Every structure is written in C-alpha cells, then in structure tokens.
C-alpha cells in the first residue's frame, strides 16, 4: 500500500526562503537548498518549492536554485509559482524538478494543463488551487471559490468544478490550499479536502492550516487527503518531520518510517 506523504513547502523569493503568514509579512529564514537538504535528511517524502519572486526577469535565480537542489536531494520535488508556459515547465523539469505546479496561469489558460501533460506526462503536472470559503450561490454551489493573486482576486469559479475540469485536462495531482486556513495553524479545511478528494481520482495534497500533528491525522483520514503539506510547524523547529511521522505511524497511518 502507498504511504501517505508528508511534504514540507518552501516559499522562495529571489533565491531565498520565506514563509508567508496569510501571504503577508514574509520574513527571510534561510537558504532553500540547505533547508531542502535538511528536510531530505529528516525524512520528508517530497518537497514543494513555491517561487514568489515577483519579476519574471529573476526566474533564472529559481532555476539555479532548482539545479542546486537536484544535485543534493534524491526524492521528488515540485516547483510552482510563475509558471506560465510549457517552456517554463520544460526549464524547471530539465533543471531537475520531478513535477511542476500551475495555479493562476491554469485558470487564465486551462490549456496549459493539457499541453503540459501531453509534453511531459500527467504525473508531472500538479494543479495548485487557492480556495476561499464563500456563501453558496448558483455560480459557486459548493461555497468554495477559486481565487488568485495570493487570495486577493476571486475568480467566480467553483472549486470542485475546476478540480474536475483540471483532472479531465490531464492534471496528475492537486495541491489544495485553503486561503481561510493558511497560516492559521488551526487545522486543515477538512470539509473542503473531503469534497475535492472524494470527487476526483487523482491524488490530493492538503495545504493550509497545519499546526499540530493531529491536524495531519485528521486530514489524512476524515479529509481523505493522500498527502499533507506543512510549513510553519517545522520551519521554526516546533516539530520535526520525524516526530510528526512517528505520531502518524502510531495512530495507524501508513507512513514511510525508514530512509
């Protein structure tokens, strides 16, 4: 049986590591390559890099970071943020990433999913979703709306409809981020995760809200998630990945415990 994956997320800006709380007030906390290596040694099952570099001209810095990571760590990692074209995807994959993640660019141009899947295989294409809770309406029947630009811009698209469309277009995986829970450390949005995970056939990575190991247990069981993204709870040393994994293992979750 597959193990549930624990995936630290590293936000990178201009080649340096940051962690945003509700996408505001980012502070630098170090070198992404060193941090990735640290998590690799600690037993992370995968690593997600999210490039929040504002200018497109500085993208080469990220590619260089990806190459340095790929020379040191030998588990899968994905790169998202600022990927707008199939050529952007190709560069990141050639630099050594296993997967690329598209978010706003896919909402603006859904064909990037199918083009990417055709060029590199579905397993390479991760759909990043930023979702916000709203009052259910005809347009947003589930009460979960797609947002972009770090949560600032609502798109008038229902999250479930979008997830299913992206799956049809060839997305291999979904990274599902709740804007409401992100940075709160009060737990993942379980209802949202269950809604999406039980209505698509591709794996779902839960994101946003992890504060204690119990939150991961909840989302991997009640939330039906295949993997859980973590950031603050390990970035500042509150927990180690090993502690989280041994907790989950003791609770009966299938987890990779040897590395």
């Amino acid at each position: 049986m597959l193990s549930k994956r624990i995936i630290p997320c590293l936000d990178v800006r201009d080649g340096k590591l940051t962690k945003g709380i509700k996408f505001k007030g980012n502070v630098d906390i170090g070198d992404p390559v060193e941090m990735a290596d640290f998590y690799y040694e600690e037993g992370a099952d995968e690593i997600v890099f999210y490039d929040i570099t504002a200018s497109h001209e500085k993208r080469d810095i990220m590619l260089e970071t990806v190459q340095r990571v790929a020379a040191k760590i030998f588990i899968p990692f994905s790169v998202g943020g600022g990927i707008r074209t199939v050529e952007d995807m190709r560069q990141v994959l050639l630099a050594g990433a296993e997967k690329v993640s598209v978010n706003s660019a896919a909402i603006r141009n859904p064909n990037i999913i199918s083009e990417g899947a055709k060029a590199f295989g579905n397993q390479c294409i991760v759909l990043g979703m930023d979702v916000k809770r709203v009052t259910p309406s005809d347009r947003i029947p589930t009460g979960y709306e797609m947002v972009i630009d770090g949560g600032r811009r609502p798109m008038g698209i229902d999250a479930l409809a979008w997830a299913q469309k992206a799956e049809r277009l060839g997305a291999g995986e979904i990274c599902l981020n709740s804007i409401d829970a992100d940075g709160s450390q009060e737990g993942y949005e379980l209802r949202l995760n269950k809604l999406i995970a039980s209505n698509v056939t591709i794996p779902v990575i839960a994101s946003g809200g992890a504060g204690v190991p119990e939150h991961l247990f909840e989302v991997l069981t009640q939330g039906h998630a295949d993997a859980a993204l973590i950031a603050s709870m390990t970035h500042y040393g509150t927990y180690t990945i090993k502690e989280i994994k041994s907790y989950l293992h003791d609770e009966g979750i299938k987890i990779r415990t040897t590395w």
Partner: protein
Amino acid sequence: MIAIIDYEAGNLTSVQRALSFLGQESVITSDFSEVMQAEKIIFPGVGAAGKAMFDLKRLGLDKALTESYGGGKPILGICIGTQVIMEWSEENDAQCLGLIKGGVRRFHEEMVDRDGKRLKVPHMGWNGVAFKQDHPLFEGVAPESEFYFVHSYYPMPEESEAVLGETDYGSRFASVIAKENLCAVQFHVEKSGRPGLRILSNFCEWSGRDNA
C-alpha cells in the same frame, strides 16, 4: 563508464545526477557503439512502451541491449526499462525485447484497498518491496525501506525465479526482476532517497553475477 541509454523517452538527467553524487562517471547516449563499449548499462525512462520500442529499434539500441545482456554486461532497468525487457506490453500492444519471459499489464481502474477505498492509477508515491531472494544490488538496503513509484503498467514475469521482490497495490506485482546480469526495478532508484542511492552504488560495484 556507465552508459545511460537515451531513447528520447524523457528526462534522464536525474539518473546522471544521482550517479555524479555517488562520484560515478556516466554518459547519456543513444549511440550503439558507445553502449557496446560501456562497462555497465542503465536503462531508465518514462513514457509509453510502444514509443520506447519504436525509438529503441530506430536507434539500433534493441540490439545493443540484447547483445549486452547475452554478453554478461551488468544492466539496470528502471521504470519503463523494467517493462520493455518483457516480451510484450498491453500498452500500445507493443512487442518488447523479450529478455524476460512474460508480459506487461495495466492496473485495473476498479482496484480497491482492504477498506474498500478505490485505488488510484497511476500507482504514484512511496511503497515497500517484499524481497523474496537476496541479491548484491540490495545489500545494505533495509527490508522495510520504501521506494518512489510512478506507473500505470506492471511486469508479470512467467518464471517465479526472476521475481526478486513484490509490491502490494491492489494485488501483488513484481516490482524487482533479476536474472543473470540483469536487474530491473519498477520504482525510481534516483528518487528513492538513501535506499535508492544504495542500490545505484551497489550496481556500480556489481560484476553482473547474482551472488557478488
């Protein structure tokens, strides 16, 4: 020198990066004579079996692999490399190399786990291997180690002696195949952390005989 066979089936640089990390020289090549001259061959790749076979034949690499196997050269197959060594594949109805007897089938879409939850295809993520025999390539690899898989098809060797390890996904399938100087793994050694690197480094030391 280790030849990493390039049949234009995807990104091969990750295998080379892992070898560089281990201090091993390698060359990514689709040249028949370069493959024939190499001391060892790694046969990786992603993609579809039909396309892989088409490109291997077009480049004359099917012969290079068959002759190298017959000549006793150590060969490591990875992922699609583990499927193309079989006789046939359900994927694109492909006739394959036939180094190992048996075929390749797709996972059923309706597979369920013990709790009745539907299993997703592709089989993607970390899973274990139950080893049935010892092999020099797995020396020093803890039996409870897990490996990173990404695949929708799996090999079914006819000879049970060729099955070195099995993985449970819906049912048990042969995830490690070994015969003589050939060893093939369905998972990605280059993405499986330290246990994966250990297999690669064991391969670099391997003479091609199944007991070191």
